[in-house]
Each structure stands twice: as structure tokens, then as C-alpha cells.
């Protein structure tokens, strides 16, 4: 220990190299993070400014600290807010119920086909998202096979029973769109589990169910949480599914933002709704980081 403290002649070249080496990571980060700063953070700040303005397109907008803009999210647009929450929660629960066994099957029973199965899971993404959603419109159509089958087994009323233009169709579309986003993080978490732990629990006479709930499930929780985040948040902001599979009675927050920004041109309202969604995400991510840590976030 004392050898280090002894006044050994310091090699200035080595010192400069060490200092340079310490700078390297920051130089590597600089361009990318600068990009995120300019095109991610600054727009969000600008959105915050916009949300507090008043005025209209003709007269121009002025920053008047209109906090009331945020209130209307909970008053004027309460139906859309509640629908966004409801559809998102419903879709997330169904995706979790479908995605967990899927990830489990690939991780534990995939064998040497694992990579192929993952590729197959992601392959539908290579058909444009809009076309796949429009395909659901054909599949769930009024005289289609699905609706007729549901009528036969009595899940839908025979007269005017339909799926399109209902919340169910929107949720079905969301479930389909986000299933891989739920499945992949869970798969990654399951894949990391040391198989000898499961053998050990078997040796200690745990039933498969006990082994699952005491070993597998807790260890896969990080995947479940990130899958839930990656599904619930984007689903709450989606407007494609409600637009193409729903009707005006199924509009969500995203639809309001879209129409206010692109057709009605009411920037302050649109910005305040958009920002409310963003705030929900910040809260979710903070909770996640506190429970799981930041290293797993983008793994």
C-alpha cells in the first residue's frame, strides 16, 4: 500500500494518456446525447411552454401561464382520458397473460429453435403496421368469420352484434400490436435464470407450481415490469387502433392530440394533453428505476 504513496517519478505521458482515456466515454456520448438534447428534451420544454399559452391561430399565441389548459384534460376530455386508461390497462393485462407463457415456452422449451422462434415472433413487423391494422378490420368485419363464430356460440347477440366500432376491437388491435413488446423483455429475463436454481428447488421437493412461484416468477419480474411499461404507455397514447378499428365513440387521448394539432389547430390544448401523457410516463419510469435500477432499462 505504501509503495503507491511513495514519490515515484510520475510519467507525464502515462498521465496524459490516463486523462485522455477518462475523456473518451464523454467524447463517444457527446454527438448522440447532444442529438437527444436538441430533438428530444428541447421539444418537450417547448411543448410545456405551448401548453401554457392562450390565443388562437389567427391572433397568435401568447404565454399567459394558462394552467387551466391542463384542467380541461380532466374535465372536457375526461371520457378520452378514461378510455385511454381503460383500453391501455385492459390491453396490457391481456398481453401479459398471452406474452408470459409465450416467452416461457420459447425460453424453456425452445431448445435449439430459440432464435428461429424469436425471428418468427418479430417477422410480422416487416409488414407495415398500418396494413396489419387494416387487416384486422377485414378479419373482424361484420359478416366475417370471427363475428359469425362469436354469434353462433352466443358471445355476441345475433342481431346487430358486431366487433368493429367497439372498445373490444380497439383492445384486440392494441393486444396484437404490443404482444412482441411484452414478450421480448420477459424472454430476456427468463433466459437469464440459472437453470440449476430450478433443479435445486426440485431436489428440495418443491412442486413445479411452487418452483414457478418461488423461483421463476420473482426472477422474471424485471422483464414483466419493462414489458408492462413498453406496452401500457405507448398503448395509452395510440390513436391508430381507435381510429381504424373503433368509431368516434372510441376516441382516445391520442386522437384528441392528433386532431387538435393537425386539423383543428388548437396548439395549447393539444400540448397540454400531450404533456399530461408525458408526465404519466415520467412517473412510471421513475418508479421503475427505483425498483429495478437503470442498467436493465435498455438491455
Amino acid at each position, binding site marked *: 500500500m505504501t509503495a503507491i504513496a511513495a514519490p515515484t517519478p510520475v510519467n507525464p505521458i502515462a498521465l496524459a494518456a490516463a486523462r485522455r482515456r477518462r475523456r473518451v466515454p464523454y467524447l463517444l456520448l457527446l454527438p448522440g446525447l447532444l442529438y437527444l438534447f436538441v*430533438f428530444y428534451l428541447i421539444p418537450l420544454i417547448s411543448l410545456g411552454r405551448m401548453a401554457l399559452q392562450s390565443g388562437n391561430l389567427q391572433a397568435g399565441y401568447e404565454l399567459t401561464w394558462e394552467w387551466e389548459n391542463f384542467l380541461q384534460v380532466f374535465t372536457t376530455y375526461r371520457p378520452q382520458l378514461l378510455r385511454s386508461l381503460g383500453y391501455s390497462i385492459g390491453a396490457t393485462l391481456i398481453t401479459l397473460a398471452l406474452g408470459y407463457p409465450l416467452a*416461457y415456452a420459447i425460453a424453456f422449451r425452445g431448445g435449439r429453435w430459440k432464435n428461429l422462434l424469436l425471428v418468427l415472433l418479430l417477422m410480422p413487423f416487416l409488414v*407495415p403496421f398500418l396494413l396489419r391494422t387494416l387487416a384486422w378490420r377485414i378479419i373482424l368485419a361484420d359478416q366475417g368469420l370471427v363475428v359469425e363464430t362469436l354469434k353462433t356460440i352466443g358471445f355476441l347477440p345475433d342481431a346487430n352484434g358486431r366487433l368493429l366500432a367497439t372498445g373490444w376491437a380497439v383492445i384486440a388491435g392494441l393486444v396484437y400490436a404490443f404482444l412482441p413488446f411484452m414478450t421480448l423483455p420477459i424472454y430476456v429475463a427468463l433466459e437469464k435464470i440459472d437453470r440449476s436454481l430450478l433443479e435445486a428447488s426440485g431436489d428440495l421437493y418443491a412442486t413445479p407450481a411452487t418452483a414457478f412461484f418461488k423461483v421463476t416468477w420473482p426472477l422474471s419480474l424485471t422483464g414483466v415490469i419493462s414489458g408492462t411499461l413498453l406496452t401500457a404507455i405507448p398503448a395509452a397514447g395510440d390513436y391508430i387502433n381507435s381510429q381504424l378499428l373503433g368509431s368516434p365513440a372510441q376516441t382516445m387521448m391520442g386522437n384528441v392530440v392528433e386532431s387538435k394539432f393537425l386539423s383543428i389547430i388548437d396548439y395549447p390544448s393539444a400540448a397540454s394533453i400531450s404533456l399530461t401523457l408525458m408526465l404519466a410516463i415520467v412517473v*412510471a419510469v421513475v418508479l421503475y428505476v427505483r425498483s429495478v435500477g437503470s*442498467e436493465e432499462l435498455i438491455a
Partner: protein
Amino acid sequence: MRWRRALLPIYLMAALTYMFIPVMVVIAFSFNDNQGRFNVVWQGFTLKHWLDPFADPGIIEALGVSLVIAMLAAAVATVLGTLIALALARYNFKGRSATNVLLFFPMATPEVVMGSSLLGLFVALRVGTGFLTVLLAHVLFIISYAVATVRARIVGFDRHLEEAAMDLYANEWDTFRRVTLPMIMPGVFAAFLLGFALSVDDFIVTNFTSGSIQTFPVYVWGAARRGIPPQVNVVGTALFIITVSAMLFFLRWQRRSALKKA
């Protein structure tokens, strides 16, 4: 007991089939002999749309815009993402956890929020929306995915090779060029492919930032109101076949280079 072991594989097959149902519908309806403007009811098999895929000149134009933007956006984002991935996987530095969080946000942000905030900025700065603004937006949402893809590859390979190169008096730049870069190349290439796919497919952010320029998804959205021409399904199917081939080719190449190493 035996039938219970079969349950999971059966479920797996069913779930994958479910994922492919809309894909099969898209492909099937590119062969539909539809009458009138709408292509939603099966009316018989025809090859006529495949023989005349660009009957609507808007399709090829939009497709061209999409491909050029995807190429550029994926390239820029892959470079930026690779640099960040190197920093995260190879160095310990202050601000590491903040960087992780900052990178996760664009992945978790709903597309409406990202699109509307960018449009808000462009409006405030009086920047006209068009080709450039779409490109800037696409780079933004690809970066984090590029970081994740490349980082997974860097973490997986042997650090000692780099140390060996340094021991043999290669400087940092030579080590990077001759050792690190060739090793992470499959990851970089995968990041580019993923970025390309994300860009070509994007609708929401593009819709906010595109102004009057049309990418393929923006064209489809507009066409959905007046009835989608079956040629859109032809283009979708062709895109699917091309990208699947590219992906399979890439996987084979990766396997072969892995075998060579072993």
C-alpha cells in the same frame, strides 16, 4: 402427464400463427379481384395488381421517399448509437445511469407525444415541415434501439482481444479499427436493419412532422379513407418478402462468421 408437456408447444404454435394472421390477410388481398374502390371482401383470385403494381403514381413516389429516409435515418442513428453503446459497454463514467434513463425515454414515449413535441418546436422556430424534419425525427426514435442492439453485441465479446492488441502496441484508434469494429460489425449491421425497419414502418411521428411530403404509411393512411388500392397490398407484400430475405441472409452470414470463429 404427457399431454400436459405438449400444452406449451401447442400454445407457442397457436400464438405465432395468431401473429401471422394479419400478414396472411395482407398477402391474400394483394391477389383479390376486387370490384369498386374497396378491397375488403374476397372476390376471387387475380394477378392483375401484381402485374401493375404502380397503377397509382402516388404509391411509388411515397415508397421512394420512405426508402430514402429510412436509409439515411438508419445510417445516422446507427453511427450515433454505436458511439454511445461503446461508451456504455466499455467505460465506467459519471452520469452513466442518467444516460441509461435518457436513452430509455424515447423508447417509452408515446409516438403522439414525440411527434407533437417536435411539431411544436418546428412551429415555434418557424421551420417548414417536410423531408428534413421527418429525417430528423426518425433519427431521434431509432437511436435508443441502435444503442441497445450494438451494446448487446459488445457485451458479448471477449475484452481480452482488445487488451492483447494494446499490449502489442496498437494505439486506441488502431485497436478500435482493427479489433473492436470488425467484432461488433454484426451488431452495427443489425442496428441498421432494425432502424431501417422502424423508419419505413413509422406513421404517427411522420404524420406530425411530414407537412405535405408523403411516406408510404402516410399515403396508406390517406388512402384508407377513400379505399385502399390493392397495389398497396402488393407493395406491402413485396416489402415483407424483401426484408425477410435480407434478415435470413443476415442471420446466415452471422452464423457462418460465428462458425468460422469456433
